[in-house]
């Protein structure tokens, strides 16, 4: 099975407010807020770590979610954000500009 790699798009602005991550795409001004689980995936989207590993490492134990369900939900979430140009998705590791910080 091939891996999925995710990286934050360079057109994105993001900031935490009251436990929610606000995300805005500068191209079309789409505005999202991410819940705690989605935020954890977003923050780990470094382009190098496979999504499967992010979910196992940062999601399942921390949020007490069934691994199979978590992987399926993560794939759906990633596909949704990718459609809106918020996340870049690839089956190969992605180059991310150094120093892009997710706060």
């Amino acid at each position, binding site marked *: 099975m091939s891996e999925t790699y995710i990286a934050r798009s360079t057109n994105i602005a993001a900031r935490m*407010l009251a436990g929610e991550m606000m995300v805005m795409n500068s191209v079309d001004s789409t*505005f999202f807020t991410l819940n705690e689980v989605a935020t954890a995936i977003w923050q780990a989207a470094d382009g190098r770590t496979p999504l499967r590993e992010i979910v196992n490492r940062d999601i399942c134990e921390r949020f007490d979610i069934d691994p199979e369900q978590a992987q399926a939900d993560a794939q759906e979430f990633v596909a949704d954000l990718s459609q809106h140009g918020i996340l870049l998705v690839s089956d190969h590791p992605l180059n991310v*500009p150094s*120093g892009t*910080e997710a*706060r």
Partner: protein
Amino acid sequence: MSLLLEMNQKAFEMGVPLSVHLDVTYRCNERCVHCYLDHDDHGEMTTGEIKGVLDQLAEAGVFFLTFSGGEVFLRRDFFELLEHARRLQFNVKIKTNAVMIREAEARRLRDLGVDTIQVSVYSHRAEVHDTITKLPGSFERTMHAVRFLRAQNLKVTIANVLMTWNRHDSDRLQQMARELGAHYTLDPTITPMMNGDTSVLALRIPGEELPEVFHNPALVPNMEEFCAPPKPVTDDDLEGYSCSAGHSFCYISPYGDVYPCVQFPLSSGNVRRQKFADIWNHSPELKEVRSIQAKDLTVCSSCRHVSSCTRCPGLAYMEGGMRGPSTADCEKSYYRTGIPTANMLRNGGKLASMLLVQIQPLAVPA
């Protein structure tokens, strides 16, 4: 309520500085007749200082960052500052006259993921624009820049200031903006110069001409609601606050001075001497601004317009007190609806003339 408005409301209630307007310089290559700024450099923050401030702003929760001036591109390090801001994932808006933007700059702005570029344009006629900016050829250069920016698919807002010199040009300029795929804004507010010179106020269009602006559906999409008589005042209205100044928004000058708003010259601290978070959380001035509800206003609390007035606490402060009326906004409320304000009624039905005092730049050694 949209999600964005919801988050704005949340930031307001929590006292999070969601938006900051940062002027990186007061220097400018234009000398606009209506400008309130002193264009000398009194000791601007260095590249390192501004980057440090940006780090602090991100830490404090700032999401929307406006870079403005003066003319931002006169700073040789502007792209370095912009890169730093985008690395910190701010949503960045830039206010500029765009005279120095060419194809390469436009491409770089797109690559950096800038959200919006607001460009000052005062007329569709080159001779009127150039007379206002006092920079020959500025109209042509600015309009070229708008085309370069649009070619990169960047969002552009053409911002016009309504004054006596361009009072008849708004419709045509708006049409021009539409043809370029740009948004258009029109602001009739003109404030005194920083040195206290109020002669610039003579450029304001006479109040009697404001109804023409407010009743123009092309400029005011929700015109009927905007110009409707005010609704009866409720307890909720009296418990309300003026605007986001000092609540979820503030302004930082090129010298590091922090104010509740660009238009609110109440010095509340300086980021060269204090941490931004300390100023934001502990400044007595900002705390006072945050404490003022409509019921505390000396004249406006008894005004019929209290629920819908655009009263600017900064203009009120310049006029004499942050709890007092802002006559410029009384004028807008009156000419919008035809109903006199409490401020007018106490002056025998007339709008009082006002004496405003602007920001005095502080020269703080770097």
